[in-house]
Each structure stands twice: as C-alpha cells, then as structure tokens.
C-alpha cells in the first residue's frame, strides 16, 4: 500500500479547511441531498463528502458507511486531492497503491473508487466528493461530467452560508 501523500501547500490547505468551521459539525440536508443523489445516480453503495484533516479523513456526508472518519494514510481521497481532475480507480485490487489497503482487503471491500477533488478558488483541495463500489467498474464521459457537476454543487454549498442555502432550497422546485 502507498500511504496518501501530503500536498506541498498542506499548511495553507489545512488553514483553508479549518476556516470553514465545518469539521465535526452535524449532518446537513444541503450536503446529504447531493450525496444521496450521487449514490442513486451512479448506483453505488457508498458515496461521501470526505474532508482531509491532518491525520484523518472526516465525512461531512455519508451514504453506506457506518464510520464517520478513517485514518488519512489509508484514505483513497488523500490521493485524490493531489490532482486537479477526478481520480478513478477502476479496480483497487489490481492497483499497487491500494491492493493491500485495509479498506480493500477488509470492510468496506472497496474495488471501485472515483473522487472529485473539492478545490477552492485559491487552489486548496479540501477533500473530495467520491463514489465507491464493491465491484470493479468504469465511468464514461457523461458520468465523469455528472460527477464533476455534483462536485461543483458541493463547492457552492461549502462556500455559501447556511442561510443562503436554506433560502435556495425553499425557492427551488
């Protein structure tokens, strides 16, 4: 297993994450509805908004996992925040970075992972919106674009005050 690396801008990245005051806060419907939509849209058992803290990944929204966090070293999302585009692992069991990862060899038995990094306008990757399956698979171009769209909706919510989001939800159809 290759442990999740640390970005060069780690200090600034963590400062940007902490400034949101979102870690360890309760679940919020505005995030849950995006994650639930992703789980249904892609027909995957697990979908997450994962935020990468210094030593852990913490799930702001979570479909399909009982844990609210895991160690950063074993996280797939820790790898995904190292790049600007979506990271797809078609079969984790056949990928040297993840084949002996405990999240692959034991519960939740990850085989497929796609993580869209949540990048602020200042370039700080805070975490990911990710979808996970227990069987190998691929995403086509339309599915990649949909995941990217959903990532954009998560970023909108991360950067807007709760009150604005509630007002939007009430006016939306």
């Amino acid at each position: 297993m290759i442990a999740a690396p640390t970005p060069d801008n780690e200090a600034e990245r963590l400062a940007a994450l902490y400034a949101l005051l979102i870690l360890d806060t309760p679940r919020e419907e505005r995030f849950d509805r995006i994650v639930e939509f992703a789980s249904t849209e892609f027909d995957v058992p697990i979908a997450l908004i994962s935020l990468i803290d210094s030593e852990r990944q913490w799930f702001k929204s979570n479909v399909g996992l009982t844990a609210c966090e895991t160690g950063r070293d074993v996280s797939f999302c820790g790898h995904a925040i190292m790049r600007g585009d979506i990271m797809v692992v078609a079969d984790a069991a056949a990928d040297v970075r993840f084949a002996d990862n405990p999240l692959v060899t034991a519960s939740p038995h990850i085989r497929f992972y796609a993580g869209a990094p949540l990048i602020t306008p200042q370039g700080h990757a805070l975490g990911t919106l990710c979808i996970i399956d227990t069987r190998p698979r691929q995403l086509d171009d339309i599915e990649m674009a949909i995941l990217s769209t959903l990532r954009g909706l998560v970023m909108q919510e991360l950067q807007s005050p709760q009150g604005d989001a509630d007002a939007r939800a009430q006016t939306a159809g």
Partner: protein
Amino acid sequence: MPERKPQDNHVLLVEPQAMLRRTVALTARSLGMAQIHEAASIALARQILRQRPFDGAIIAVDDGDAVHDLGLLDQVRGGDSASSPHMPIAVMADNCTGEQLAQLKQRQVARVIVKPFRAKILLEALASLARQKTD
C-alpha cells in the same frame, strides 16, 4: 451560413426534482450539448413556452397521480407556443401503460423515459433530441 453548434440548441427541461434538473442543466452546459432552460412545474413551463422558441423539450408528465398531464404536449403540437409544433419532445413518466403509450405516440413523442430517472439517461435523451433536430 455558419453551422449551428449543439450548444446553440435551446431545450426546455420540465422536471420537479431540483437536484436532477440542476444536474442535467449544468452537465449539459459543461459538455456543450445544449442550453437547458429549467422549469420546476408544468404551469411555469406553459408560460416559458409562450415566451421563447425551443429546439426540443424533455417533459415530466406525471402529476402525482397515475394520470399523465399531456397539456404541455397539446400546447406545443397545437401551435400554442413560440416553438415549432413539430419540435422533438421526450417524455418522463413514472410508468406507462399501452394506452398511455398510444396517447404519447399520437402526440409525436420521440422518446419515453420511465423510472428510475437518472441524469445520465436524460443527457442521452438530450443528445438524441439534438440529433433529431439536425437530421
């Protein structure tokens, strides 16, 4: 005369679920498939259809009951809109009996999409409507 690009096509999407509607509209724009105009209700769509022309439409026809609301289809096909009465239309329905399918065919519906409604399926339908428009 310059060739019309897919992203120049204007398509009306009538769908009450905000997440699905928004995801389809934003993804279609990012892929350069079409400009999606969103309507959360049939009542709103009725107004929008009179205000500007469209190259196609995807319309959810369920009204919360087992009966399909075909009023929008009749409005377009009857010429009571700013669009061509022959513009391609796809329909979303929770389910569709043989009798309902016949009603939709009578109204020249290009495609019927039944549950589960997924953004990917709607985007594929959108691409199919665009092809019909150019054929």
